[in-house]
């Protein structure tokens, strides 16, 4: 792929590229003439490339860390991998099975909703991230689509709580649905989507139980949720997405991923990187056609777990988003 940053003379790195690309996708929604399929496809290629670089860097770093802490430091996590589509999800969840420290507030932020909001038809609401991770503001502060989730100040979120209100953790990811309008057949379908919550849920044992201390139940399906950094709201997609259809703490957690997803202990990491990794994982699910087999296979195994190509193969909602226009 990209051989080092030298190749790119500009100062942008993978994260900036991702945020810029998302901004473009978002703004294309409001442009006259509707979404341009060609341009969005090209932007998605850049997203994929940036994501790959970002992920490979993360892997490299995790690997280095593993070298440092050979006893398997807790919270070593793989950058989130996109989950396989619901259809193929059958494997039992492979949680990190690492005892999670109480300060799981160091979870990475999710800007799922932000991303969705920009990219249309994306699934599942956002999980709020612990505040520490939100300290550094997202690179672009303006666009509505890209907001770091934030659970507010530390004390505000109970330990172990991975998300703020509205993030229907408990709801199986599998049940996230998006509504798609096929331009050709004019058929409106509600599609069961992939698992964009994989990161949140994978390592949180509390997901498996009715989440105690949940701040509030997720919003009712179909409601719009506003999402601002530092607040426990989230911005949902306008398409009347059913919001995952579950009640936090209700149905038992049933992640559909085949791989362990590790959450990275990123306390010492730049906060925005955590946002990015979530975005990447979310969008990772959106790049089936774009991600070749080789790239999928080349991702390093970590702790024996791989982001399998099926994971990457589940192109998510956002090309459907394009279809809808």
């Amino acid at each position, binding site marked *: *792929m*990209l*051989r080092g940053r030298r*190749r*790119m*003379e*500009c*100062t*942008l790195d993978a994260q900036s*590229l991702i945020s*810029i690309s998302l901004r*473009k996708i978002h703004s294309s929604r409001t442009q*006259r*003439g*509707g979404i*341009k*399929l*060609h*341009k969005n*496809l*090209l932007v998605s*290629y*850049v997203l994929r*490339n*940036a994501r790959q*670089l970002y992920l490979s860097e993360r892997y490299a770093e995790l690997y280095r860390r593993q070298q440092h802490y050979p006893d398997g430091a807790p919270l070593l996590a793989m950058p989130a991998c996109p989950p396989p589509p619901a259809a193929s999800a059958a494997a039992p969840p492979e949680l990190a099975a690492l005892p999670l420290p109480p300060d799981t507030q160091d979870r990475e932020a999710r800007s799922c909703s932000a991303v969705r909001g920009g990219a249309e038809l994306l699934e599942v609401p956002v999980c709020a991230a612990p505040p520490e991770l939100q300290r550094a503001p997202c690179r672009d502060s303006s666009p509505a689509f890209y907001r770091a989730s934030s659970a507010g100040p530390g004390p505000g979120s109970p330990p172990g709580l991975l998300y703020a209100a509205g993030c229907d953790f408990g709801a199986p990811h599998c049940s996230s649905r998006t509504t798609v*309008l096929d*331009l*050709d057949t*004019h058929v409106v379908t509600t599609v069961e989507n992939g698992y964009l919550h994989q990161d949140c849920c994978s390592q949180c044992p509390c997901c498996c139980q009715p989440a105690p201390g949940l701040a509030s139940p997720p919003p009712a399906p179909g409601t719009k949720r506003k999402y601002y950094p530092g607040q426990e709201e989230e911005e949902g997609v306008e398409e009347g997405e059913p919001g995952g259809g579950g009640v936090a703490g209700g149905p038992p957690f049933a992640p559909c991923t085949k791989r362990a997803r590790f959450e990275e202990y990123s306390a010492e990491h730049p906060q925005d990187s955590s946002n990015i990794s979530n975005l990447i994982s979310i969008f990772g699910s*959106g790049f*089936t*056609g*774009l991600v070749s087999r080789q790239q999928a296979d080349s991702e390093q195994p970590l702790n024996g777990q791989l982001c399998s190509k099926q994971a990457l193969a*589940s*192109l*998510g909602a956002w*090309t*459907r988003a*394009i*279809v809808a*226009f």
Partner: protein
Amino acid sequence: MQHVIRFQSSELCPIYPEVEDSNTKRYQIFGWLSCWTKQNTWFQILPNLGAGGGNDIQWCFSQVKGAVDDDVAEADIISTVEFNHSGELLATGDKGGRVVIFQQEQENKTQSHSRGEYNVYSTFQSHEPEFDYLKSLEIEEKINKIRWLPQKNAAQFLLSTNDKTIKLWKISERDKRPEGYNLKEEDGRYRDPTTVTTLRVPVFRPMDLMVEASPRRIFANAHTYHINSISINSDYETYLSADDLRINLWHLEITDRSFNIVDIKPANMEELTEVITAAEFHPNSCNTFVYSSSKGTIRLCDMRASALCDRHSKLFEEPEDPSNRSFFSEIISSISDVKFSHSGRYMMTRDYLSVKIWDLNMENRPVETYQVHEYLRSKLCSLYENDCIFDKFECCWNGSDSIVMTGSYNNFFRMFDRNTKRDITLEASRENNKPRTVLKPRKVCASGKRKKDEISVDSLDFNKKILHTAWHPKENIIAVATTNNLYIFQDKMN
């Protein structure tokens, strides 16, 4: 195979060529190619590099059309330029949905040093903005392409298209009108029949020329995605229209149906990897067309093979150079335009940084590649940020297929001479707007010390881009569209 060797001569000494071809100015001399070999070879004497170029054509400013304002109204942005088959008419389309047609003045004997000027012939509103209520989509009125039909009678016909609808326009002249009606006054009022005492036969009398444009056919509702190309078949009865995922074949007389001949929409849109970016019929074979993709491939299809030409007859693709891989490789390899040569033997494609000439008989690589603005390769990040990397440049052939032309930034445009392998960069600017001023070649300094008269890459104005150019089918007259102005250049006639 012809090698073009550029060499610095260490000394000049007269030598009598053994063979001389004065047509092409080639001389065969017995020359030392290196210390060890001595062989006969053709040496072509080239004039001083840097002055002129482009097959020794000296390009002069002729005219500029459009507002002088720096403040460009969005509706005035030119979106397509096309000469008709004789070159007498030049059509432009803009973002506001209007078509403006210029007509060349007949050459008169007093002005033998220049060809006729182009003046406005007709202006009409081709497309209006529409709203698709079903999909909640606004449909832009911007004219994406204009294609002329060959002239069959006194009227002219052209096809113009926006994102969704193609229209066939008839442009006709009226220079006579009937006068002398019995029941109508000259101003149109009706006469009282009882006052008519004598009868006369109305006659045609000359009047001021009036050019009327009327839509004869409207071809609508056949494209789900945005139309990017239209191309008239050499049978002059059918034409194709291409959007991002499909190509449809129409008959010019029939508006209520079209045949879908290419469909690359995947069953699952999640698997979408490429879109169609341009399509064109072969100039001579009415069964052959090509379409280019966002992945940098061109597919040639034969309509005789099957009704649905999803399977190509030929696939033209050049393997990617792995050393040039970057975040933006996919974007810059996307083809923005494809044009057959007039002969039909070659086709030219334009991607973001280069122009490639393909021989239809060779699929695995182009026969010629010309770098348009390679100095931008290191700036792709910034160009991505400001969206310039998505600009779709067009390209065109000259009448004899010996020179190709395409646009760049800073209102520069480039010409590549396929025979001499020389290229030239010119600028479309109002600064040189005295007629018959010879354009000075421009040069961009990629790095290092900037010489006098060179422009550094960082001072290029990326808002001034030339996306659309057209070459007269027979003469050395070119039309170059900047954002909202149309420049016409001619070669210097002596």
